[in-house]
């Protein structure tokens, strides 16, 4: 039994190098945690596709099952789940996020926390 929501997610994370499933939009985040990840990505000059899960309840639930991760936001780089707000923040502060973008060939500004 194929899952249309999983198929949509799989397509989005395959077609876009950096995808952020979030509450609200990049311009108008509607949750502090989502806003923080947006700030980090913008600070690093990374182009990303923001997907507002509030617009689609089946996506909001489906994304949690897709990765067995119970919260939003969720960041994907080159099709791989990187983490939520805590992990992305920790990786940004330790420099690991910049390394990940470099390894995956994602254009970014080499900035420190």
């Amino acid at each position, binding site marked *: 039994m194929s899952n249309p929501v999983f198929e949509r997610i799989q397509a989005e994370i395959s077609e876009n190098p950096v995808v952020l499933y979030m509450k609200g939009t990049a311009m108008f985040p509607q949750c502090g*945690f989502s806003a923080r990840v947006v700030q980090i990505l913008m600070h690093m000059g990374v182009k990303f596709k923001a997907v507002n899960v509030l617009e689609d309840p089946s996506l909001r639930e489906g994304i*949690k099952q897709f990765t*067995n*991760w*119970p*919260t939003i936001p969720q960041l994907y780089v080159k099709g791989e*789940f*990187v*983490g*939520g*707000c*805590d*992990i992305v923040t*920790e*990786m940004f502060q330790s420099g690991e996020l910049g390394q990940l973008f470099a390894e995956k060939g994602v254009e970014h500004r080499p900035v420190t926390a």
Partner: protein
Amino acid sequence: MPMSAAEIEALIKAALPDAQVTVEDLRGDGDHYAATVISPSFKGKTRVQQHQMIYAALQGRMGGALHALALQTAAPQD
């Protein structure tokens, strides 16, 4: 039904008996906590896997009864 810091600690310890757990109530509303968990069971695991172990310990409350839990996880230094 909001959760208490003690409940969160108990659930994590039930699943990870060898863990050192500290839970901080960020806003006093039973909904926003920060937890630091240090456990040998995290050795060799990615951060995502470590956090998933905590979410599993919380038996589905994460994202429901518990709106926000800022997590810091690590294996003990050798």
